[in-house]
């Protein structure tokens, strides 16, 4: 190890640290603010009487959770309900569709798959207004239906991911099963799905995160506070006439981000790994 390579390594390490600090900073700031009282917000961190404390965090959480300004337990209930149905639908529909695009050979299959990918190019604003009108005709505005029903028709990324995975499973397995008289659906449920369980788990996790974080659909389709999900509830909480104190807003934000962070910690490699592949196979 010569001097210049040590120097180079140190420089890179310093850059790495800088990157870490830059990306983690807003989250850190949120945590610190959530640990302070309303009157301490904005004062220097270490000023006596205004130091952030875990006890204050507990008090803030209690205020946010039980406060009259917003019914967060209700929002949590709503978010979980929508997320649950959303995940279920996405997993079921995407695996069926991905199977059709990977394990079966038929004319037009690959051309249609290109169309599936092409739908990524459709900007949401062009769908926004007419989708609203479609849902209005169906009488679904104000209900949860517009939030989870579309997941039951498959999602581009999930289909892509599962198709990738299915393609890698050796064909001998299904051929063997078919020879034994198994129907196509049987092959799907008994052979492919069990092997693909990890990939399906990733799809489920990512769909959970997507549904949990969804802000636009609730914003457009939900009207009454009793139906709000967490994302929309946070928005409402923050933009109250008169302004909500920042320490409480940050506490609420912390509560909403926490489950996602938790999920991430548990399945980090899987999530990052599957996201990384999407760019490789264009």
């Amino acid at each position, binding site marked *: 190890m010569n001097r210049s390579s040590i120097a180079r390594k140190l420089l890179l390490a310093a850059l790495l640290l800088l*990157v870490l600090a830059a990306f983690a900073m807003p989250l850190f700031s949120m945590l610190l603010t959530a640990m302070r009282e309303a009157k301490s917000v904005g004062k220097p961190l270490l000023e006596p009487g205004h130091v952030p404390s875990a006890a204050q965090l507990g008090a803030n959480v209690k205020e946010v959770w039980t406060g009259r300004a917003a019914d967060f337990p209700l929002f949590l209930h709503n978010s979980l309900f929508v997320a649950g149905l959303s995940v279920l639908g996405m997993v079921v529909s995407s695996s069926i*569709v991905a199977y059709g695009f990977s394990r079966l050979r038929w004319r037009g299959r690959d051309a249609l798959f290109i169309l599936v990918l092409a739908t990524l*190019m459709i900007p949401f604003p062009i769908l926004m207004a007419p989708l609203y009108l479609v849902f209005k005709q169906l009488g679904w505005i104000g209900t949860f239906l517009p939030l989870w029903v579309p997941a039951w028709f498959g999602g581009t990324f999930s289909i892509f991911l599962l198709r990738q995975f299915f393609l890698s499973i050796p064909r001998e397995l299904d051929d063997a099963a078919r020879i034994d008289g198994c129907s196509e659906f049987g092959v799907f449920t008994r052979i492919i799905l069990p092997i693909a369980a990890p990939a399906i788990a990733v799809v489920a996790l990512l769909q959970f995160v997507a549904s949990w974080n969804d802000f636009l659909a609730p914003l457009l389709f939900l009207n009454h506070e009793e139906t709000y999900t967490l994302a929309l509830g946070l928005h409402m909480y923050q933009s109250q006439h008169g302004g909500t104190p920042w320490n409480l807003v940050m506490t609420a934000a912390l509560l909403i981000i926490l489950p996602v962070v938790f999920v991430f910690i548990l399945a980090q490699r899987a999530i990052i790994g599957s996201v990384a592949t999407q760019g490789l196979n264009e």
Partner: protein
Amino acid sequence: MATARLHPTLRGLTWVSPWLLGFGLFMLLPITLSAWYSLTDYSLLDRPIYVGLENYRELLHDSVAHAALKNSAIFTLATVGVGTLLSLALALLLEQRLPGSEFVRAIVFLPTLVPVIAAALLWMWALNTETGSVNTILRTLHLPTPDWLGTPTGAMASIVLVSLWGIGTFVVTYAAAIRGVPVSLYEAACIDGAGPFRRLTTITLPIISPTIAFNLVMSIIWSLQAFAVPLVMTRGGPANATTTFALYVYQNAFVFGRMGYACALAWVQFLFTLVLVAGVLWASRRAVYHRGA
């Protein structure tokens, strides 16, 4: 599902029917309706009235729409330009395999999982002129502390900053692509006496160019349709500086109640997106390396 007896194409279509149905209902139908409504005046409460191309004619004279287009262009250029360079740089840094790289990679990726509303609020707080962490840091370094959300340029910089916070997906894909470059190529280059910069430009970048092209397209598409962050952080202000085109579409549809005009605006946006993407794809024909036909 005893589909074995069906003609293969029919069978395949049956399996992918959920997606086909969804595509029809939630994409094809709205797009067609959107085209029809763009030719009408529709306020959501009245019945639609056919006005022909008047919405499009109005668009040509609508200074706010023009300003919104300009804002979207600036935002997209900044986000995609800086974002691509930054994510490539970060990916390269992470692939140096220094200890702790995997942890940093996780932290860089984490913001993409944060709900957009929370991200907007976090940054609203961090960019607060008096008490935000960004200005506190700048103040201790004796650097100027701009009024981020209160000035037109500052506000635009703010929403670009929030978008850049979310480049984790791109960093991760670039890192994976870089990892996929055969080491033998680097070894051969070293033997030929090529320095790190030469290796970067003649080996790494060309080989990962398909990923770069793909990410460019995805980030352009995404930037052009983003409006949640400006909606929550700056409400399109100050002085309409952060009213991106997508936000203007939203305002027309759901705030002013002009659905017909909003659909016309959305079609214009769609056209722009297609043109830009086609441009990138055409340019990439020559610049992108195709590994084996």
